[in-house]
């Protein structure tokens, strides 16, 4: 371990070189791990904090009343919990002009409704309010190493400040403050403590209320002095930020996160490790030269290579000061001392891990990000533009070596990220050959990677990766409430039924609960007319759709048509109250995937999702669920056949969820659940007959998705792995398995009644059985 002692910076003659001071033990091999020197007493807190990061909150546990995400990791998701997010998670800060000219925050919780300007429906584009005057888009930044800024003293930041540009280098730099302390956290450096930052984020983005942290660390009392104890002290100091309890009046008692979990979230935020930079011995000469030119160009004027802290110099490439970034990047948002054109210098360690770049995610690449710089960076940009292409590339190589990956853009090529293998959750369903494993791995990369506009993303999209909606509990899994799709349907002016698939936001921080408010925001004339007609005649329906888990979807394709047909009883000839109808598709195939059994094969599922959710086309010969031209600027097909094949292979081979072996339940049979949730089809233990059943919903509440399927009919959802895929039902309306059972109706009425008649112990036994599937 190399903790470099605090140095005396007032006497420059004895000042050691910065590189001699760099603290070493903050780097991690596996992202998401704590810094290696984290004291053992804090490991448990860190691990619990990590689980709190990924905890999916529900309305019953405090989520909302409005929310943009249902977990911290919902936004800080890539490549691991604590990371950044692609553009589909962007949100907007919105301000309106008040009667006296002041700009005041709009939206819910004061500031930040989600707005996705690329969303598949124009109503989700700006402007949400005719009075709104300022829109500031925000892309989720990564948390790696950010907590270590807690160990940087106010004075060490102020030492770099030059608010009046006294040295005449064109770079000023000034501090922002919070409650009398120099602020360090946030794009505008608006928070002085991580506690303050965390509490703001969980309240504004999830509607989770909290109390100020008053937790004592009795086991961590300072007994003496050493550097490790200093870590504890300073983290403890983070706890001292005073604030008021947050309240949201959503019916769940406040605070909605307890002090212990909040403390552990703070421990996680403070100690999450820094991506390991490429060792000097492994760096290219271009990268080494690029490092020198990084300074010569002037980038290091703000992105200073290291900043002193009580644990040693942190090689974060930031001065933590506010700088004028020019009009092109100005967002008009003022926070504390930060003006609309000022932003905190972003850290660059691990920068290659988290495109898109800049506060609003406008830059796909580092070169774009550099060239958007203005204001105090103008001189540097002029010098950058004067470089040769080779010299610019060297700087990019250098940036990529700051804890990034070989090709600087696709983190999944990094060997530090292991691909699951046979036997792992999220791994393949069988032992793959080495060639197949390589294909599986490539398919996973494609599933996990972010599309950009040049790759076909758009013209509109709900997500920019497959993973975005299928990541719980592993890549390929289900999605939370925060990635629901919103369907709006009804009868238009010509009495023709319509339905629109819109991105989620039914419970977002925008006031979209009320159809009338949605109508006000429609900006496509035909849509507006149709929706207004539907609204006025009472036929307008708004319904959420939950992304299902894809684990085992390939196994579903292997089930024979005959086996599924054998379970059908469309006329309820056995008079058990359960019918079950096969969904035949237009091409003659038997539908077996999707909430309405509207898709027959994995390849069609992939094609449909790529087009509908991401706006990516594939070659028409591969599926009827794509189109030849999606009218964006990218040449079609946008996804090459080899990629489609590998992506489909990955999805197809995803192993079904593991079930625990004692899966015999008399109650499951006796209550009648097995009437539709058939335990096994062709040796596939999916607990579904893959048939359509009347669920007894009020037709007026369900969007009629397809001709030939009743609004109230849904395919029996497989129950394997159900314990890991809450919330439940097609619209995510059930938080628990208990609720999900009671939400059944129609053909399941008898079973629901039987369940209700069980003793509470029997009900718990049945729930336990389901949890083990």
């Amino acid at each position, binding site marked *: 371990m190399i903790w470099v002692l605090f140095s005396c910076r*007032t006497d420059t003659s004895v000042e050691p070189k910065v590189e001699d001071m760099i603290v070493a033990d903050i780097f991690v091999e596996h992202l998401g791990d704590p810094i290696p020197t984290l004291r053992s007493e804090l490991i448990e807190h860190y691990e619990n904090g990590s689980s709190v990061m990924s905890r999916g909150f529900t309305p019953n546990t405090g989520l909302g009343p409005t929310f943009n995400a249902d977990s911290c990791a919902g936004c800080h998701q890539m490549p691991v919990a604590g990371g950044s997010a692609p553009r589909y998670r962007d949100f907007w800060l919105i301000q309106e002009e008040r009667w006296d000219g002041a*700009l*005041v925050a709009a939206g819910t919780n004061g500031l930040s409704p989600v707005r996705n300007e690329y969303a598949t429906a124009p109503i989700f584009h700006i402007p949400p309010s005719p009075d709104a005057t300022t829109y500031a888009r925000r892309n989720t930044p990564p948390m790696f190493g950010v907590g270590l800024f807690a160990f940087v003293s106010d004075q060490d930041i102020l030492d770099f400040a030059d608010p009046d540009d006294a040295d005449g280098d064109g770079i000023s730099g000034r501090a922002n403050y919070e409650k009398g302390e120099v602020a360090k956290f946030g794009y505008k450096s608006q928070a002085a403590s991580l506690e303050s930052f965390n509490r703001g984020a969980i309240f504004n983005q999830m509607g989770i209320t909290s109390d100020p942290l008053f937790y004592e660390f009795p086991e961590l009392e300072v007994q003496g002095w050493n550097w490790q104890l200093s870590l504890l002290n300073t983290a403890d100091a983070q706890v001292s930020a005073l604030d008021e309890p947050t309240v949201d009046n959503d019916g769940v008692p406040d605070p909605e996160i307890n002090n212990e979990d909040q403390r552990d979230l703070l421990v996680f935020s403070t100690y999450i490790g820094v991506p390991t930079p490429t060792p000097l011995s492994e760096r290219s000469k271009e990268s080494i030269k690029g490092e020198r030119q990084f300074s010569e160009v002037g980038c290091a004027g703000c992105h200073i290579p290291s900043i002193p802290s009580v644990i040693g110099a942190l090689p974060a490439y930031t001065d933590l000061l506010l700088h004028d970034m020019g009009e092109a990047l100005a967002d008009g948002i003022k926070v504390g001392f930060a003006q609309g054109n000022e932003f905190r210098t972003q850290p660059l360690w691990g920068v290659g891990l988290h495109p898109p770049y800049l506060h609003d995610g406008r830059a796909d690449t580092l070169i774009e990000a550099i060239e958007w710089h203005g204001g105090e960076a103008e001189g540097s940009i002029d010098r950058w533009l004067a470089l040769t292409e080779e010299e610019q590339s060297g700087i990019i190589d250098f940036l990529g070596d700051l804890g990034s990956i070989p090709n600087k853009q696709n983190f999944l090529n990094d060997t530090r990220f292991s691909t699951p293998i046979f036997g792992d959750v999220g791994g393949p369903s069988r032992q793959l050959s080495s060639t197949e494993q390589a294909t599986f791995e490539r398919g996973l990369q494609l599933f996990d990677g972010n599309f950009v506009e040049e790759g076909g993303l758009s013209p509109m999209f709900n997500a920019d990766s497959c993973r975005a909606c299928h990541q719980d509990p592993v890549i390929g899994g289900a999605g939370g409430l925060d990635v629901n799709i919103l369907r709006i349907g009804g009868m238009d002016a010509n009495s023709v039924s319509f339905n629109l698939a819109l991105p989620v936001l039914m419970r977002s921080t925008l006031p979209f609960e009320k159809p009338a408010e949605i109508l006000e925001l429609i900006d496509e004339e035909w849509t507006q007319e149709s929706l207004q007609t539907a609204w006025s005649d009472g036929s307008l329906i708004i319904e959420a759709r939950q992304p299902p888990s894809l684990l085992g979807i390939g196994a579903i394709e292997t089930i024979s048509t005959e086996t599924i047909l054998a379970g059908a009883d469309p006329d309820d000839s056995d008079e058990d109250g359960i019918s079950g109808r096969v969904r035949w598709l237009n091409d003659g195939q038997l539908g077996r995937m999707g909430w309405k059994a509207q898709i027959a094969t994995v390849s069609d599922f992939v094609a449909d999702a790529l087009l509908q959710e991401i706006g990516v086309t594939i070659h028409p010969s591969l599926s009827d669920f794509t189109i030849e031209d999606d009218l964006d600027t990218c040449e079609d097909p946008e996804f090459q056949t080899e990629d489609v094949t590998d992506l489909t292979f990955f999805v197809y081979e995803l192993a079904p969820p593991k079930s625990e072996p004692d899966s015999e339940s008399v109650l499951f049979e006796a209550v009648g659940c097995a009437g539709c949730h058939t335990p096994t089809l062709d040796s596939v233990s999916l607990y579904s007959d893959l048939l359509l059943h009347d669920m007894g919903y009020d037709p007026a509440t369900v969007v009629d998705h397809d001709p030939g399927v009743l609004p109230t009919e849904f395919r029996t959802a497989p129950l394997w792995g159900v314990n890991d895929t809450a919330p439940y039902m097609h619209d995510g309306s059930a938080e628990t398995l208990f609720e999900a059972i009671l939400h059944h109706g129609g053909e399941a009425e008898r079973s629901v009644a039987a369940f209700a008649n069980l003793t509470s112990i029997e009900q718990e036994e049945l729930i336990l059985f389901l949890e083990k599937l």
Partner: protein
Amino acid sequence: MQPNYLSHTRFTHVSIFCLLSMACRGSSNKDSGVATTDPPGKPNWESIASTDQDGAWLRAHIPSDTPEELWLVGGQPTAGSIKVGNAIKGFEPLELPEGTPLLNWADGTSTNMWVGGLYGSILHWDGAVWVDYSLDIEEAIWGLVVVDNGATVVAVGGSSRWGGDEGIVYSFQNDVWTSHPLPDELDGLNNLFKVAFDGEQYWMVGTSGALLYGTLDDLTAVPTGLTQDLITAIATPNDSTVQIVGGRGTGLYVTGQNGVLDTPTQLIAGINGIATDASGNSLLVGEMGYSQLLNATGQTVEPVPVTTHILHAAAVHIVDDTQYWYAVGGNLATAESTFEGSILSMEWTP
């Protein structure tokens, strides 16, 4: 149990670092937390009480008829407290009627004192007896001012975590409380925090830059263009001026005259209280124990913080020919159900 933020404050930690680093730095900074390292003459706080179990203190008032007496007003949510005294002789509690909730403000003389608190509570002290003049409302009384030689009382308030949801203005004359509507521009305003009287006009400040100016019959919403909360206003009757402080996270200080505000000065912490001495020197106090002294020549000094309690109010008076400044506060804006207070004093004559 002593709360964690007192035993593990940023200041104590930084002081440890500085003890190690001072030897090579040869100087200290505002965060040093070590009073002995500060230059001679720099004002420093002395703590009279750091965890006063009588509650948080929200007002420090010096009655004009007893200028050496300081009235501290505050308490617990269910038990208001008042203490009277000064830095020399200490403070003694003044008994209140049973059931008096947290008190937020006081104004008047030692024989005509009005105090306001939660749930519309308003009490009058004639030097011997308390009389209850409370309003039947859920809103808290955050501020009040006694004018017309004690004949008129004007109270303002609004929502608190204990109830209420709208900003209110009431006046008391001839034994009757009268409600005054807010201008349309401030429709939906949930709080007015303080009221000051400049000899002719009232200044009322509240959330999100709200400022009312005028007479009780003609209150006008002043377009401040400010979005920060304006928390305290003090007026100087001789020249119709006002000083206003506020903010959260970062603070502001702004002066005004005749209903017009000057350009605000931004400060590095939210400011809750202000006091001005006869020479025009002012003390500003606020979040995380932050305080700043402004002298008449425009110089500023930041006294070394000795508490992380929020400082809510300030006062200044002369006792035995020595000028004493006070800052009082507590843990009011926290999740704690039991409050405790801080009382700080400082000798400083610029």
